[in-house]
Every structure is written in C-alpha cells, then in structure tokens.
C-alpha cells in the first residue's frame, strides 16, 4: 500500500480518562476514498476515536496523521474534514440555507461558487423547497439531510459521521443507507462512519473496523469479517443471530482449550451427529430459528421454513469447512487448525461433507 492511499493513519493512540481508558494503543490505517465503518458495542470507544481524528479531543498518547501530516496541535477547522453529528447539531438560529452555507460563508467563498454548490447539493439531498425554513420546522429525516448537506458542501476530502442515522425510523434509515453510500461514491469521499448497528456496517462499508473495550478486534471487508472472524468477540457480535460458540468438548473428544464456532445457517438436522435438546422455535417467514442446547451450551440453528420442525431431541450436522477454531483462553482465531485431528465424542457422529 502506498502512503498516498492512506488518508488517516492512527498510530498507537491511547485516550485515558480519569477512571478508564477509552482507547488503548489503537493502530489502524484508513484508506482514501473508502467508506470505513467503526463498529462495536456502545461504550467501546468509537466516538472517542472519531473525535480524536476530528481534533475535538486530544489523545493521551500516540499519533494521528492526516494525509501524512501529524495532527497534534492542529485545530478541528484546519484538518480538512467535515463532520455529521448524531444529534445533527444544526444551528437553530439559522435557516437551512445558512446552515448549509455556514462553512463556505466563514471562509469567504465567492457568492457565485456558494450559489452553484448550494444548488447542486440541495438537489442531491432533495432540500430545494426547504431552504428558507428553520431547523425546528423540519422533520428528523430532513434535519439529517441538512446536516449531511452541510458536511458535503464543504468539499473537504474527509467526512466523519457519528451514528448519523440512529435517530431515524427504520424505513428512512434503510433509504438513507443507500443514499449515503451513493453520495460517498459520487464524490469520492473518505468516510469514517461510526455505528453500533452491524446491518449498517455490513451494507455500507468498504472496510469494517470492529472495536471492543477500547481495542481493535479486526479490520477487514464485510465478507471477511463475517466469514472469518478473528476473535470470539467478533464471532459473537456479527450476524443475527451471531455465530454459535461451542467448547470443543461439547462436540468432540478433543483438546479442552478449543472453542468451535459455527454459524446458525451452517448447522442442519441430521439422523446422526451430536444430540441436542430443543429449547424453542422462532418462525421468521422464509426461515426458522431453532434454539437448542448441547451439554448445557446453547446454540441456534437456522433452517428453511419449509423443512420439518425438529422434535424434542434431535441431531445436528455441519460441513467441515463451516467450522472456525478459536483459542478458548485468548479468544483468538487459530489459523490453519486441522479439524481432522479431532474425533467425534459420540459414536453415531460422522463427518458430513455436504
């Protein structure tokens, strides 16, 4: 990767507060022109990282480079970035037009340029008829668009967004996901997008940074994050429902220090295999989720709705390639783990190669 590909370089950044560390030696590159999503549960340090990039907060330790420049001491306004806040942060005393043009007006951009860009952006966001209203006269979705327009019109190469869709209803959120993504592509923006919603992350991201407890768990494209989680945290965070994690002893008479991860859709009912007890069934339309347990370990199996519902006791099977191996102590993925070395812990179990 060339330096110029990297818009933002986070290098061993720590942010300690009085009682806790919001970020602990975080390092990650963010590529130019990509839609990067910071994903993690609430309180894991996503907003903190975003605010450090923006310059609204200062790291305790470590370096943040933007376009190769060390940003320490550079005020937010001079970092060449725009930001969309969760609460929209519109200026209540200004009209929609003035809100959108705020940055350009401050920088004394010529009237002609302002008018031309306003026209383009207002069209793109469908804000044309609303330009003379005050923010208080807009719906949540419209306010959101204004906040977005204000960020986009600045023509700054980097745009930071902190849960910008979380205050919208489900339908609007789905529409905005598509729209945001297309605007980002159209303008070639480098977007850093914070969310705790994995659906948003999966559908929008070029690259996902999974965070937990102030650390980065995994960086990768959505497919890789889903298919090959690097840690048990990522495995149990991504997917609805997430990956099943079994202690190896529940499935095999194998090593004790092993966790086996299998996605619900990779499990199926068989006549032979580890025996499970039925806990409950949830019908979802196209699919059915079957909750069961093996030796006290709960799991979920996803099956097509037309297949037969399991009885109180049933056997489960899976393909060998569907298995993920994790170190039970560290929770880290064991690459190149050889599952064929394991022997099933029940006589009637046979490996399926479906």
């Amino acid at each position, binding site marked *: 990767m060339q330096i110029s590909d990297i818009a933002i370089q986070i290098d061993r950044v720590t942010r300690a507060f009085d009682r806790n560390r919001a970020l602990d030696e975080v390092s990650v590159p963010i590529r130019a022109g990509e839609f990067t999503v910071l994903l993690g549960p609430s309180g894991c340090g996503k907003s903190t990282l975003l605010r450090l990039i*923006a310059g*609204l907060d200062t790291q305790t330790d470590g370096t943040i480079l933007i376009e190769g420049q060390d940003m320490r001491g550079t*005020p*937010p*306004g*001079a970092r060449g*970035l*725009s*930001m969309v*806040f*969760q*609460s*929209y*942060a*519109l*200026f*209540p*005393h*200004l009209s929609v037009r003035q809100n959108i043009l*705020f*940055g350009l007006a*401050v920088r004394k951009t010529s009237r002609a340029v302002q008018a031309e860009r306003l026209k383009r952006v207002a069209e793109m966001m469908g804000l044309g008829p609303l330009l003379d209203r*005050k923010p*208080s006269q807009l719906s949540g979705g419209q306010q959101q668009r204004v906040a977005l327009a*204000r960020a986009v019109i*600045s023509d700054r190469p980097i745009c930071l967004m902190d849960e910008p869709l979380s205050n919208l209803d489900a339908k609007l959120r789905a529409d905005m996901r598509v729209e945001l993504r297309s605007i980002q592509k159209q303008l070639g923006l480098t977007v850093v997008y914070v969310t705790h919603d994995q659906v948003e992350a999966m559908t929008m991201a070029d690259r996902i940074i999974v965070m937990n407890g102030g650390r980065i768990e995994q960086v990768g494209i959505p497919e890789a994050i889903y298919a090959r989680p690097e840690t048990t945290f990522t495995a149990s965070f991504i997917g609805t429902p997430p990956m099943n994690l079994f202690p190896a002893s529940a499935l095999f008479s194998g090593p004790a220090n092993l966790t086996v991860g299998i996605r619900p859709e990779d499990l199926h009912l068989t006549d032979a295999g580890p025996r499970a007890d039925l806990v409950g069934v949830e019908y979802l339309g196209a699919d059915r989720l079957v909750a069961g347990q093996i030796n006290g370990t709960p799991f979920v199996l996803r099956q097509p709705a037309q297949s037969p519902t399991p009885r109180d006791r049933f056997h489960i099977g899976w393909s060998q390639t569907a298995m993920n191996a994790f170190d039970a102590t560290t929770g880290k993925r064991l690459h190149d783990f050889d599952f064929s070395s394991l022997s099933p812990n029940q006589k009637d179990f046979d490996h399926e190669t479906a």
Partner: protein
Amino acid sequence: MAATDLWSPVHIYGGFMKRAGFSTRWLPILLLLPQLSIILIFFYWPAAHAVKSSFYLQDPFGFGETFVGMKNYTALLKSSAYLRSAQFTVIFTLIVTMLSLSLALLLAVKADKVIKGAKTYRTLLMWVYAVAPPVAGVIGLVLFDQSWGPLKDFFGLFGWDFRLGVTYFDTAFAMVVVSVWKQLPVNFIFFLSGLQSIPKSVREAALIDNRSATGRFWDVTFPLLAPTAFFLLIINITYALFDTFGIIDTLAKGEPSNNPMTLVYRVYVDGFRGNDLGGSSAQSVVLMVLVLALTVFQFRMVERRIHYT
C-alpha cells in the same frame, strides 16, 4: 409556538390526562382571594391613590387638599431639577445596563471555558454568586466610603481628589460602579447557564467549520444567547431604574440637593423630604407609565421571535 402554549395544562399533560376541575364556582375564588387581596392592597390601591393625588395639591401639614388638574405634571416639565434627574436617569441606566451586561458576558465566556463540563465547579460557582449580590453591594459601599474606604486613597495616587457626596461627577461615578458591581453576579449566572445550555455538538459543529474563536462567538454563541441577553436587558433596565434606590440613598448620604439622583429617588425626596405629595405622585405616575411601556415592549419582543424552538 407562542411561549404561553408551553404552560397551558393541555400542553403539559399532553392531552392524556383529564383536566382537573372544580365542582363549585366559589372554591377557586376563595383560594385566589389571599393573592388577589395582596395585589389589591399593595399594588392597585396605592397606584390608584397615586393617580388621584397627582391631580391635587396637598397641604404640607396635612390639612386638606385642593384639586389642581394637570398642574403637578406641567410643573414637572418646567422643573429644571426634575429634568436634570431625568437626564441623569437615562444616562445612568444606559451605562449601568451596558456595563453590567457586557462585563458579565465577558466573565461568563471566560468561566465557561474553564469549567466546561465540570459539574461540581459549576454548582460551587453558582452558589458563591447566588449568595453574593447583597454582600457585593455592601462591599462596594465600604470601598467607596469617604472617611475610610481604600478607593479614595487609591484615586488620590493619580491626583484625583475623590469627594463622594460632594462632587457631582464623583458621586455619579460611585453610583455607577456600585450598581454595576451589585448586578454583575446576577447577569453572570444567567449568561453562564445560557452558555452551558448551548448543546456541545452545536459548538463542535461550529468548531469544525470556523477556525476563529471570535467568529464562532458572533456567528453562533451570541445569537444563541440572544434570548437570555434580551431577558437580562429588560431585567437590568428595571434594576437600574428602580432597584438602585438603596445604593443612591446611601451614596447621596441624605444630601440630595447637589448630588445626582434617579427619578425613583426623586419621588421619595420630593414626597417625603419636600412634602410635595402631589408632585411626587405625578412623578410616580410617570414611572408607572414607563414600566407599563417596558412590559408591553418585552411581551411584544418575546412573542415576535427571540426564541428558536
């Protein structure tokens, strides 16, 4: 939304709760009676009395009164002492209001930077300032005391022979300083809480778009403080006009003749020192009209726009 809608019972209960009602007509009237009688006895009755006596000439020894029509009012307009007081009142009010508002705003902006987010500091500061005003007034008076106040000696260092209660300008100066000094904490508290109530994210949005702190203040902070500032403007004008009575009384030291005084103080001086109850009543009627105008102006403005929600 008009400010009044906010407090209507329907708004507060969101229409879900039944409106509480009285079954008889007499109970609510009975309950309102104490409040109403206080207003009647201590406000409307004296006001009506003042209007009435402003048309009469009272005998200084209390033996009867003669109807004189508008004479008390025309006499006011011809009295150079009254006009001088009126002029002083206008200047005094302008200076006190402007100084106490701008100084308080400056202090509040500085304090806001320091105590950003720190709730305990904020509460402590509020406490100190909430207790302070009367104390500040007393301290102000002590500082200016002619016989042992330190300020007299301090001014002496610059060759200013400061004579409180003797030189017109010196007395006026002390009146302004003590009045501002006493009102500052109140303004400070309001401005500070106004500043603190501006959402953090709105300030940060401004921070990202505008590098200049002064620019951010005038483009974002000040307009968002405008409702607070307007409210304080009215409060401060009222204060300078009426509530400075005690300060003026103390500083003029019972020597009203050649000292500056505000219109409110003159009502007292002419009425109770000069025993001109008719003229004094006419003066208080003028002041009543002034208050009325101020109130109407305030309501108009509040209705017009100075809030954003």
